[in-house]
């Protein structure tokens, strides 16, 4: 028996979806916490592993790492949704972290096997928000990885966060790294 298909979810297109997530598609992650932005010595920004919840990327209990398909979303709606998640002082001008689907799909494990699946995952209306056909999800590929492989999960979360290296406020101004005591 051959290896299972790592990302069967990418082949499914729900009825309300604008279509499969293309490799070149820009994807947006709403930055919820000011402390979740890191910066290296070259000034490059990225999302820290704390921004990528393990339960989400594991796909535990139906969860997933939520993304917005910018090309298929209304800008005002996107900003409103991001503001609802943002730190208090970012609510007027939320922060978006961007990547492309192909970068997440290019993450491989030590055996050169794909680690991350990215797929269309429209959501129904919730709370103050209407349905969101532009919602996409990222989860770890099949077969599931042992929960206790803590180094593996941290490396995957770090890898995923590193893909989000275009981090700006909704108005285009640069995001800054939180100053800590």
């Amino acid at each position, binding site marked *: 028996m051959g290896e299972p298909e790592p990302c069967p979810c990418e082949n499914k297109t729900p009825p309300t979806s604008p279509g499969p997530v293309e490799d070149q598609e820009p994807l947006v992650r709403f930055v*919820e*916490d000011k*402390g*979740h932005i*890191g*910066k*290296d*010595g*070259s000034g*490059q920004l990225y999302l*820290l*592993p*704390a*921004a990528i*919840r*393990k*339960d*989400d990327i594991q796909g535990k*209990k139906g*969860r*997933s*790492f*939520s993304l917005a398909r910018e090309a298929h979303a209304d800008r005002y709606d996107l900003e409103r949704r991001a503001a*609802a*998640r*943002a*730190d*208090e002082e970012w*609510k007027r001008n939320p922060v978006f972290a961007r990547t492309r689907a192909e970068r997440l799909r290019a993450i491989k494990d030590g055996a050169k096997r794909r680690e991350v699946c990215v797929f269309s*995952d429209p*959501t129904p209306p919730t709370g103050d928000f209407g349905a969101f056909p532009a*919602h996409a*999800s990222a989860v770890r590929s099949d077969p599931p990885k042992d929960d206790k492989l*803590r*180094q*593996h999960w*941290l*490396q995957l979360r*770090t*890898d995923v966060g*590193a893909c989000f290296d275009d981090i700006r406020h909704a108005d285009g101004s640069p995001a800054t*790294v*939180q100053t*800590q*005591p």
Partner: protein
Amino acid sequence: MDPLPEASSSTPAIAGAFAQITFAAVLGSAMFAAGLLTRETGTPVIARSPEYHHQHRASRDDLGFLRREWVDPDAVQVREETISGAKMLLAQLPVSVERPHLSVSAEGEIGFSWTNGVDRFEAMLDPEDHLVWVSKVGGIFSPGGDILISSAADRDVFYAALREFHGRA
């Protein structure tokens, strides 16, 4: 889909002061338990070490910003014990190692992030006191270690890895 977190809350100054006093008592007990203080005098065993002064960082640190509340019913707020563990780790950092950028996850973890040029060292302390780290050197992420911070010998392994990372030119 991951749920919405609530905006972060702030801790009043008096609560912060109380937390520091409480922490000092807890840290003292923890250090006795870990064998870092002598029972006779309460003198730190590591006082003879050139890294001694770093233990005082803990009492000055205010990690209140890590106490974030979340709306998501599945989210886990960082526990005081995890914050105490983080303070202990910070207090004993090698002299050559700068204080890291700290972050908190919705799973009750505390992240420690160091950079050296474009290289990175990421560590995560979970609510069960497991400290896991990975590094990215020369553009490649590599596995690091997985320890229990209650073990002084294990912590030394972590600090050695940090020294090695920071020793790279």
